[in-house]
């Protein structure tokens, strides 16, 4: 793993007994001695600490916030101009065909837009934004780690270090002093639980992580449980559940595109693929991302081909994420099916080890979101 990059918490992961794996060019902890299942349950019941420093932290700066936001709106079909100061929202970079280049988080930080992008896409995203926008400066923040503290105990743990943490609502952003470190904190995450994402100067990241882990309720959580947590929460993994070939409507992400950017809105369109995306938002699509519950206990994973019946030879779709949901206590999956088969309660069949196994189209998320609205 010598070519892989290490995060500022690398030594801590090793000291905590993590099993390290290559992920998006980084050496990352997939699990700790607690194990994936217990780490998942711990996050849902107490609090988990995740190292997500592999993700890209990017500042987009213009003459002022509005200039940077207006520029980004030419690449992102989201209301960025209307975002209040110190508020964050989910967004998408789209391509000319209406597909999704990446999904990301956008925050209004007063004088700039702070963007967090996927690790595997960050170099492309930065190049794409830089090449397509004039009058703005795109700067990757490389001297900060990114931690996530997730779970019902997260608020009490973080508020013990800075009381302001308790006052934040879901998707609020604030600068907090955590153990002497100036941290950029958002009340958000990728687990479906309440919690925070914390950008911390790299030099202070290990001390902060240790201070958080010193709380009895907090355990370190690896990528394995991060994946099962986000899957139960119905959240997309870029490159799997959404990609350059899936549109926002197909990905069931219409909610991410605010009215002001839709047909009839004050700033409708004006982003790559707007013709396709806005037409689909009005008239629907042929296929759609749905939740799927395999019957029985056998997990059905990414790549399992879906059929309309036990005997039909023509595939109708495919699973894009699947595994065991520890909180659900059974297998869960997401995938694409024709809109004709997307109604909740529809039975479809997955090809598993030469057999056709039934799955039921189910509402997402599988586990209720516990956000502090």
């Amino acid at each position, binding site marked *: 793993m010598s070519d892989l990059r290490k995060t500022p918490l690398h030594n801590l992961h090793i000291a905590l007994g993590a099993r390290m794996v290559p992920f998006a060019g980084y050496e990352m902890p997939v*699990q700790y001695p607690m*194990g*994936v*299942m*217990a780490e998942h349950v711990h996050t849902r019941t107490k609090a988990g600490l995740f190292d997500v420093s592999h993700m890209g932290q990017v500042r987009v700066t213009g003459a002022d916030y509005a200039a940077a936001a207006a520029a980004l709106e030419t690449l992102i079909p989201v209301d960025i101009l209307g975002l209040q100061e110190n508020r964050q929202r989910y967004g998408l970079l789209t391509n000319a065909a209406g597909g999704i280049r990446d999904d990301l988080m956008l925050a209004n930080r007063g004088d700039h837009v702070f963007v967090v992008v996927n690790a595997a896409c960050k170099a492309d995203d930065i190049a794409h934004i830089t090449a397509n926008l004039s009058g703005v400066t795109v700067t990757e923040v490389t001297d900060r780690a990114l931690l996530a503290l997730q779970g019902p105990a997260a608020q009490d743990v973080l508020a013990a270090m800075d009381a302001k943490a308790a006052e934040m609502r879901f998707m609020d952003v604030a600068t907090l002093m955590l153990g002497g470190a100036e941290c950029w904190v958002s009340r958000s995450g990728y687990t479906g639980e309440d919690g925070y994402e914390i950008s911390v100067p790299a030099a202070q990241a290990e001390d902060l992580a240790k201070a958080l882990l010193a709380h009895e309720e907090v355990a370190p959580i690896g990528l*394995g449980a991060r994946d*099962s947590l986000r899957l139960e929460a119905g959240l997309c993994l870029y490159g799997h559940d959404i990609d350059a070939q899936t549109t926002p409507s197909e990905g069931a992400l219409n909610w991410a595109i605010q009215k002001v950017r839709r047909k009839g809105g004050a700033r409708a369109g004006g982003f790559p693929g707007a013709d396709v995306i806005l037409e689909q938002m009005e008239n629907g699509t042929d296929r759609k991302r749905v939740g799927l519950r395999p019957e029985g*206990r*056998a*997990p059905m*994973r990414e790549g399992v081909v879906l059929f309309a019946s036990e005997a039909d030879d023509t595939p109708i779709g495919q699973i894009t994420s699947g*595994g*065991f949901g520890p909180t659900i206590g059974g*297998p869960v999956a997401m995938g694409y099916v024709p809109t004709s088969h997307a109604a909740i309660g529809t039975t479809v069949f997955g090809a598993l*080890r030469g057999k056709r196994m039934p799955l039921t189209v189910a509402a997402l998320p599988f586990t209720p979101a516990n956000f502090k609205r």
Partner: protein
Amino acid sequence: MKYTEEHEWLRVEGDLVVVGITEHATTQLGDIVFIELPDVGDTVAKDDEAVVIESVKAASDIMAPLDGEIMEVNADLADNPGLANEDATGKGWFFKIKPSDPSQMDDYMDEAAYNAMIS
């Protein structure tokens, strides 16, 4: 107890052989969430795929270590596949096979040889 290179253990019990996978294997696999066992009465040949194990990470196949007939399977694993993690060589056993050629047992390692292999 005998051991295969595929991390199965084999324990003779009268004229049957009890088969499971080792603690080393279950630790490597991680939390086991589903185990598909053969049917009682199945006749299997050595190296036939006999068991599918799904862990939180991936699916793995376990091969029959001997020729023979499946006489019993561990029904407790259907509801509680985690038994294979908790008690790999005890309550986490997979199946009991009646070997048609007991001399095939001689192909496998003893505990010292297995421990040397995984160390």
